[in-house]
């Protein structure tokens, strides 16, 4: 009986948390359409989420493309199809790996920092102070982060894809001797606009997930625990939940929409 009660309690808790997260997202989206938009804050967050993530995107994009080039070349050469290295590198990058890996990198770099920042603002009563000044934290904190993530993620993904394709070129063409014209020619034949659109739509939705989860976990930091330990746990939960949601949502989008 006690086990059933505990199980029921856990289910109610999970459902109420999902509801709370849903309401948080709805309220944040609602505030997007209520002027004034905090434009300076939006630019600042684009710089933080987008521009300052460029270096890590370059690194991960380059090495992802290089390893795809290396593995792809070995397998394709075995079947005598090494001319198809271009699409072998580009298609997975554009459709899946670019959006997903860029989103995971932004989650690790910016999402965690957002949760920690908002969580610390929460426990040090800075968010209460904002509210007492008549400034909604939704308008001042969450809307700029959501819009910044929606703007930044597709750009970072495109950046990741281009660098990754260049990484594949370095390995396939410069290191392993495939012709440059073959690499890019086959790629141009195989990759169409639909593949690029798929990647862009995915990255847009991943931007929503990152901003939503990061801001929610920071704002409701007390659900994770008290004080510094609470911020630490909320930050960990934010990164894990964002990463899991990104991977699950990627599968859902691919299977339903593309």
């Amino acid at each position, binding site marked *: 009986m006690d086990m059933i009660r505990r199980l029921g309690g856990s289910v109610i808790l999970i459902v109420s948390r999902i509801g709370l997260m849903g309401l948080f997202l709805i309220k944040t989206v609602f505030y997007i359409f209520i002027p004034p938009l905090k434009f300076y804050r939006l630019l600042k967050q684009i710089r933080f989420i987008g521009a300052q993530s460029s270096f890590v995107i370059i690194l991960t994009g380059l090495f992802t493309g290089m390893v795809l080039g290396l593995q792809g070349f070995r397998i394709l050469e075995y079947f005598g199809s090494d001319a198809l290295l271009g699409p072998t590198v580009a298609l997975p990058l554009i459709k899946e790996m670019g959006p997903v890996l860029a989103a995971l990198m932004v989650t690790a770099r910016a999402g965690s920092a957002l949760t920690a920042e908002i969580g610390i603002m929460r426990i*040090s*009563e800075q968010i209460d*102070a904002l509210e*007492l000044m*008549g400034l909604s934290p939704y308008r001042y904190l969450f809307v700029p982060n959501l819009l910044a993530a929606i703007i930044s993620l597709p750009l970072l993904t495109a950046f990741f894809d281009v660098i990754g394709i260049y990484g594949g070129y370095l390995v396939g063409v410069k290191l392993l001797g495939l012709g440059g014209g073959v690499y890019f020619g086959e790629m141009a034949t195989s990759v169409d606009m639909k593949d690029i659109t798929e990647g862009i739509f995915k990255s847009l939705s991943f931007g929503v997930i990152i901003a939503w989860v990061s801001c929610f976990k920071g704002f409701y930091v007390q659900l994770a625990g008290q004080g510094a330990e609470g911020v630490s746990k909320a930050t960990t939960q934010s990164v894990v939940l964002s990463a899991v949601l990104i991977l699950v949502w990627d599968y859902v989008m691919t299977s339903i929409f593309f």
Partner: protein
Amino acid sequence: MIQIQDLHKSFGDNEIIQGISLDINKGEVLALIGGSGKGKSVLLKHVAGLLKPDKGRILINGKDIARLRSGELTQVRRHMGFLFQGGALFDSMTVYDNVAFPLREKTKMNEAEIREKVLDSLAQVGLAGAEDRFPSQISGGMVKRTAFARELVWHPEIMLFDEPTTGLDPIIGNSILNLINDLHKKYLFTGIIVTHEIPRIFDIVDKVAMLHDGVILAEGTPHDIVTSDDPIVQQFIKGEIDGPISYR
């Protein structure tokens, strides 16, 4: 000005406020005293509309703050200042930017007007010259003064102070209380001060209320409290270990 009527609030199974009623008239300053963790700050946050009561009402100029719409609540808060226990300064901004922040966000003043107001406000709290420092670079007393300056730029009609001297040495603590007293005389705000600064606080307030076990145990002028024959009040204001209040 502020009427608290039969306020109840629980957190989980712990009913921390069990039916509190208080009236604070315009221009009066009330000291709210009582043991730590007994709900004084919770009561103050209800007055600011940061928490909603389970039962009861808080009327600010006749308006029930818990039932106001967002726009109306903003209007009420426009005339209210809140000095948080830790200052609640924005730690990524300088002292100057912290004080200028509400003016930049909520008014259409140009930067020259804002500068004049901010420097005046900082001068009033004795912080002229500290404009470019960050909260992490100033002392606890200066943090509280900056937070006070940030509220003063509004010329609030109501000021709420959550333990304004906690964590400060006696001299700086006294200077903060003197500052509150001086600025109250100047601006005639209505105030509530949550404090443990006994008996010093009795010199600067009009009324005192003692919160104990979720209710107002005693209320009156500072003289009424000091001469109260309630053993709990006497033990608390004298800080005696032995008595009816258990600290275990």
